[in-house]
């Protein structure tokens, strides 16, 4: 069985008149298997949202291939792409901004069905909408309300209902809980887990929140400046991060247990501008382990044990990189 999603050598550069081009994605290769939750983690400007949009084909890659169930999406005629869109849905960060404030919740949730299954009768549409609202934990009378009358958590439930109504195989979740309060976030995370179990969904979970990523994902891809620097199962990456960037990122996480203040790896300087092109490793300018080899040429991901891959020539030495603990 081929992987559900397979990206090979994907590049994307945004060109702006009179300004330096932004290298958003560089040579991205990634696979996703059916039923898993793959988290894309990285800081602002790492390219994680661009990658999500390329998989959704809301953006076209400049080069490279994106396959969904073995089919090359870039070669697909519009008609078949429309069908594929129903199999591949999205939920975005700001629920309110992604919902049309003038439409009722019922119309918003029904909209994808009107496009993808135009043959349905009004009664069938209504039935499917009500089932979906129930699946996401909204009362039937929510269908008649406007998004502005709902709380942030309820709005995000509407976004999720709209995503599942076409019975997709996969959902790209782009920071779905980042704008929600902690107690609301817990409900949404549990709902997503429940829907995944019931409907056999595959999730691409884009997030910058390390606590959430560790909780929800089965596999992780760490992005930095348009490249994937490390991939592996959640335990491989969290228990034994091998890219110096991954280690810096994970060690910057603040534990909510005051007794735990693990040592932190600090990188020097700030993230380079995405307009910079890098001949070698993208972290070379900030990395404490940098050697001449790091800037001599492209650093490709190499396999460690299991599913663990890392794009670092000195990955074996990363575990020695630790800084003293923070003082209270």
């Amino acid at each position: 069985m081929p992987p559900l999603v397979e990206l090979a050598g994907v590049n994307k550069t945004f060109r702006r008149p009179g300004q330096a081009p932004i290298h958003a994605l560089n040579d991205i290769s990634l696979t996703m298997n059916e039923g898993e939750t793959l988290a894309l983690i990285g800081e602002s400007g790492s390219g994680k949202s661009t990658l999500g949009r390329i998989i959704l084909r809301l953006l076209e890659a400049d080069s490279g291939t994106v396959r969904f169930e073995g089919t090359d999406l870039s070669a697909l005629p519009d008609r078949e792409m429309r069908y594929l869109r129903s199999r591949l849905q999205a939920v975005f960060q700001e629920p309110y901004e992604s919902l049309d404030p003038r439409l009722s919740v019922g119309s918003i949730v029904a909209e994808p069905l009107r496009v993808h299954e135009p043959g349905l009768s009004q009664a069938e549409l209504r039935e499917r909408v009500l089932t979906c609202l129930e699946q996401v934990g909204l009362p039937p009378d929510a269908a008649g309300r406007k998004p502005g009358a709902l709380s942030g958590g309820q709005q995000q439930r509407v976004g999720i209902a709209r995503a599942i109504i076409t019975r997709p195989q996969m959902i790209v979740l782009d920071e779905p809980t980042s704008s929600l309060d902690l107690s609301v976030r817990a409900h949404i995370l549990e709902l997503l887990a429940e829907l995944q179990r019931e409907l056999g969904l595959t999730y691409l979970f884009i997030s910058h929140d390390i606590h959430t990523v560790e909780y929800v994902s089965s596999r992780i891809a760490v992005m930095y400046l348009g490249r994937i620097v490390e991939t592996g199962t959640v335990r491989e990456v969290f228990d034994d991060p091998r890219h110096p960037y991954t280690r810096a990122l994970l060690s910057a996480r603040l534990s909510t247990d005051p007794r735990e203040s693990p040592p932190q790896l600090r990188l020097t300087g700030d993230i380079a501008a995405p307009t910079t092109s890098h001949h070698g490793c993208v972290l070379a300018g900030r990395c404490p382990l940098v050697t001449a080899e790091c800037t001599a040429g492209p650093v490709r991901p190499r396999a460690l044990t299991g599913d663990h891959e890392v794009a670092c020539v000195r990955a074996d030495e990363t575990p020695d990189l630790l800084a003293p603990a923070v003082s209270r």
Partner: protein
Amino acid sequence: MAPPLLSVRDLSVRIRSGESIVHAVNDVSLDVEEGEIVGVVGESGCGKSTMVKAVLRLLAPEAEVPSGSAVLAGSGDLLALDHKRLRQVRGAHVGYVSQNPFGALNPIYRLDRQFHNLVAAHRKGTSRGESRRMAAKMLDAVGIAGPDRVLDGYAHQLSGGMAQRVVIAMSFLLDPRLVIADEPTTGLDVTVQRQILDMVAELARADGRAMLLVTHDLGVVAQYCRRVVVMYAGRVVESGPVADVFTSPRHPYTQALLGAVPRPGQPLERLPGAVPDLRVLSEGCAFAPRCRSAFDACSVRPEPTPGGDGRTVACHLEKEPADAAAR
């Protein structure tokens, strides 16, 4: 023992909203001692930002403060100062860092001039050269390499992290004893957040200074604050040393909040219901409708009760633990 650097007592804020009145902050009391960082934590709408804006006298005209005091050692009750005195105190004795650094910076003046205006407002006759030396030194302390380039530029040329460093440098410039920071690192990337918090914590604890840090991020409180004040529906529900409150929370809301932090392999605590409507002042405990331990006593509002161990909890379970456990 010296009196607290900041002592807030029975502070309430009401905000007019159309025909109704929102009881945003109700009878909040807290202390900040020299050399410590006190965290104020809670979810959206709990009143934490409104509370510190009231202390700083930065509330919008729709808001009024019917009761309370906020005594800053050496400066008196901030809520009772006349405007002239308030201007002298704000900036010089108490600094402020808001969530949006760009809102605190003037887009049309070079930063150099903004630093100078700040210094000159409090120390008349300070020369441009002197204020620039002070600014450069402070920018260096907040980790900005090449302060001169920043001082000769404008706010819009800065990244979010750099802009927040500049605002922090301004807030500490005149050596205030207290800095109030409202979500200073929200919206910043995690590695930048750590750098800024480390830097702020070092400044805030030095030389008998102190900080009141408002945040929704429990990790920030756990790692940087000595004491914490937990707010719900405009009231303090629990306060005490972080080392105790976060490892053995006593108020059911504090317990639920800590239980909602994702931890691998552990089910998430899911609080039922939603935050109450603050247009209605409830007579009982505001958390009771969502509380799994609620019992008949909760129809009367519990007063914050000091436990003698530096902890205060506003919950009837504190008085009748055996009684409640039997339910």
